[in-house]
């Protein structure tokens, strides 16, 4: 409020106290007057109610459920939990980076102006379009050591007896889960990065080409600097989504063999519902907070300033 306005207000409200009340109300209402302010508040109330009842309350309740330090001592002493933490870290580091890097490369591939590339893109987004459950059940059966399609194919084509992908070894099973996650989610990020590439003006490439930056150098000096921010935001967002990914592990490996491939999201649900100890489940999930809080803060800043919408 500039001085002229203050002056005008002062004239309109000679009484100091009244003026102060008026100013405060005006600041609080953000320039909206009377009934308009009521309408604006009424329009927000439904969302505010949803947020309070179904997000704020569960969050607070969850924090209260998992507040006891004994729970964390119990978790840390549990070898299943220790393995789960290792799995979660491996899952995040390997799956997110392979997926995002693959998406970056493939988005370049899908820029090619060929009819068959456009047709392939339509097929390529199929894993994203198909619900998670049918695909993961199919992958689960496909990787069956005895009757699965993959081992049948290996036998028919190479005459090799394939391993029991999900039944025998922790690392094979974890690898299968990571591959399934990449299969399902790489198309989504490819489409996002493809849109990012398309937004780069073509003249920039032409100018760079004249200056001798083609191929890999064009990528390093033109495409990547322009995409870097988007790539970073996508990676952060993907890290959070992957941290909360329940379906992949639950349906592909089901945490097996011998509970060796659980991640925090599935272990929390297992502890809460199969073992019937909700506090322990909440504690398992909450032990991801030291990783989640910085991620969330970073992301909220980034998303607010650059307006990336997903």
């Amino acid at each position, binding site marked *: 409020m500039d001085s002229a306005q203050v002056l005008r207000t002062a004239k309109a409200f000679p009484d100091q106290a009244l003026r102060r009340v008026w100013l405060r109300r005006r600041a609080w209402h953000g320039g*909206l007057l009377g009934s308009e302010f009521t309408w604006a508040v009424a329009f927000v109330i439904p969302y505010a109610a949803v947020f309070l009842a179904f997000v704020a309350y569960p969050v607070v309740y969850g924090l209260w459920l998992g507040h006891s330090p004994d729970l964390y001592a119990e978790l840390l002493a549990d070898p299943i939990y220790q393995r789960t933490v290792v799995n979660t870290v491996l899952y995040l580091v390997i799956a997110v980076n392979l997926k995002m890097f693959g998406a970056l490369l493939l988005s370049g591939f899908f820029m090619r102006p060929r009819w068959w590339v456009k047709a392939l893109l339509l097929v*390529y987004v199929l894993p994203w379009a198909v619900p998670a459950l049918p*695909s993961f059940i199919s992958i689960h059966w496909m990787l069956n050591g005895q009757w699965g399609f993959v081992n049948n194919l290996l036998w028919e084509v190479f005459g090799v007896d394939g391993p029991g992908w999900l039944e025998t070894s922790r690392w094979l099973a974890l690898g299968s889960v990571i591959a399934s996650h990449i299969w399902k989610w790489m198309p989504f990020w490819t489409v*996002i990065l493809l849109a990012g590439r398309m937004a780069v003006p073509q003249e920039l490439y032409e100018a760079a080409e004249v200056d001798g930056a083609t191929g890999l150098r064009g990528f390093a000096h033109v495409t990547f600097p322009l995409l870097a921010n988007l790539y970073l935001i996508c990676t952060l967002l993907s890290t959070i989504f992957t941290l909360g990914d329940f379906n992949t592990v639950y349906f592909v490996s089901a945490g097996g063999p011998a509970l060796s491939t659980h991640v925090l999201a599935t272990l929390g649900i297992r502890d809460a519902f199969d073992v019937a100890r909700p506090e322990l489940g909440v504690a398992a999930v909450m032990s991801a907070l030291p990783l989640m809080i910085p991620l969330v803060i970073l992301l909220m800043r980034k998303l607010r300033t650059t307006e990336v919408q997903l």
Partner: protein
Amino acid sequence: MSVALREGKPPRRPRYRLRRNLREAGALALGLVVLIWTLTPIYNMFMVALEPHGDVFTNEIWPAKPSLESFWIVVTQGYWYLEYFWHQFGNSLYIGVLTVVLTLLIGSLASFSIGRMRLRQGWLVSNAALLTYVIPASFLAIPFYRIMQKYGLSNNLWSIIAAEVTFATPYAIFIFQQYARSIPIELDEAARIDGASPLQVYFRIYLPLMAPALVAVGTYALLLAWNEYLYQFLLLSSTRSMTVPVALAQFLNSDEAPWNYMMATAIVYAVPPVAIYYAFRRRMTAGLTMGGVKG
């Protein structure tokens, strides 16, 4: 080429063409790998579904005697796990439609208030939505389940609708606010001067002009509700209140899993979202990347 030779330059054109052909061949090879990688799990789904009962436990890589028997069993509910299949299908649909309606209503009202009426406290709502968007839903599932019991909504379809609306509205608010920036605020002001109430501006001006964003978000919400599994699994327990994914996952836990019926069910379940996805694909991707690449 002859011109190049006459001028005494080395004949570079054939080499250039060779390199271009090599690159084209490389792209084709990559395309083939991508195609096989993408289609294998989907091929497996169809292969198993087309096998007649009892032939699932063989070592073939394509169905020897393809039959549509499993699909028939699913459609006619001819297996005891599929007794309520169409009822469950209806449950999924009911949840999906109500989620879409409520998400659009709540999301558009909130973004109208923040974006168009410029409510001073709007940033609080935006931040709450952003926070909800970045909290993984599976992390909230345990307290959410307990709270639904407290609300008396366990084994009730409304608990699922509440969950899906909760996780769909933040996305709706972002997209609406982004999209509304392309609609001149003068339109609202002109209507206000002509005496329209905020409610009239919302219905007569805001909603009609937001149609593309409404379609994008509606599709998103429908697919979210149809595809979501964890909350539906935790909150719905009786066969009659179950949705298709929950019933489908129940198969997995049975001792003699009839894989061909299961895959046929999975395909029937996946067809509607895939069809909707491809029908609204352009709108969806436009929504997903709207303003997303400003860098």
